[in-house]
């Protein structure tokens, strides 16, 4: 494998971010942020990012709001939601409309997420 795939992870909970960073850095190049705004900045800095995974409920800007904003600028990138909620109408609509590629449940399943990301390489 030549270069690691670049992914961005956004979550307002610090422990989640830290653990994601530790676990996914083994196989991917991971950039993390604590809000949608940080996510938009990260996307600007790392334009070759393949996938963006975001928490759903965050203060100020929700995961869906962040992805809607990001998708306008970067329609070619793949977006995912990782949340402690069961599938909500909001998530279902986002999948149907093609806004997000998929949805992962917390507690996360490493294999499930890796499988999805590896499809993009």
């Amino acid at each position, binding site marked *: 494998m030549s270069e690691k795939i670049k992914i961005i992870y956004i979550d307002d*909970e610090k422990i*989640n971010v830290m*653990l994601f960073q530790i*676990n996914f850095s*083994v196989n991917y190049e991971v950039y993390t942020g604590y809000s949608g705004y940080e996510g938009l900045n990260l996307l600007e800095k790392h334009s070759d990012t393949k996938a963006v995974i975001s928490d759903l409920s965050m203060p100020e800007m929700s995961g869906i709001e962040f992805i809607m904003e990001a998708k306008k600028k970067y329609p070619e990138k793949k977006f995912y939601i990782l949340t*402690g*909620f*069961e599938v909500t109408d909001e998530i279902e609509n986002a999948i149907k409309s093609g806004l997000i590629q998929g949805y992962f*449940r917390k507690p996360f399943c*490493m294999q499930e997420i890796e499988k999805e990301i590896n499809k993009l390489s």
Partner: protein
Amino acid sequence: MKSLKFEYRITILYTLIGGLWILFSDNILHLLVNNRAKLSDFQTYKGWFYVIITAILLFFFIRRQLNKHRSLEIALQEHQNHLEETVKERTKELELNIKRLKDTQAHLVQTEKMASLGILTAGVAHEINNPLNYIMGSYVGLHRHYEENSFSDHPEQVGKLIEAMKIGVDRSSSIVKGLSQFSRKSDSYDEDCNVHEIVENSLIMMSSQIKCQISIEKDYSNSDMVIKGNVGNLHQVFINILNNAVQAIESVGTIIVKTREKESEVVITIEDTGTGIPKENLKRLTDPFFSTKAPGKGTGLGLSITFNIIKEHKGRLEFESEVGKGTTVRIVLPKINRP
């Protein structure tokens, strides 16, 4: 004259005729009959004439009056019959309305309860899933660490300890998932419902209620049994029926859960060895607010709601019961409820 009552009228008329007769009949007779010898004969004829005329008059007068009464009586009887029918009709309408009202009330209570429960569970699930995510993340990191490095002391034990964390997270997560599915708010009857998964979830949620003397026997069909329906509502169906089965068992007993797949429908049978249901109560089981449980133990809404949910799924709910032996509840659901 018209305003006077019949008895007054007839008395006055009789007195008038009699009086006039007494006053004038003899004078008239004297004018008409000159022969004195024949006068007494004519007196007799006159008497008879009076009697016949008054009798005829009385006959017609009374008959007219009685006819009026008779037709009134018939009209009254007809009216009364009609009234009875109207009362019967109205009572039926009233009973139907009361039933509708009870149904609506039951539905409202349930909707309100499920709405609050849904909000609560979604919140709780989210709050629990986040810390579970921490544990899962730590497990993944530790597990990898363990695989890459050998721990000098008791490497086998460390491996087992780390695996136990994973099992704990998985089990907690599946309970939270089951709970979320149970209280999921959705009006769609077109969701994919995995019957075995729903029954298992319901059993997990009932596990604290299932006393240790109750054994659960499962006899599941080998097929997948995925039908179209409403996931949250079907959870309620099984939880309600399992709850009744558990409450029917006083101390020791068995609950058998059986699933079978047929061509166009699935059949789930829940059998308990509980107290059973008397025949007179079997018909009323699904009436809203009908309960034989002690106050506080049941609202009488469980089976009414269950029945309505199954009706929405175009399915059937059947009961068989024998007092002292137990009850069998059969739930029949079409695979696709809206073809």
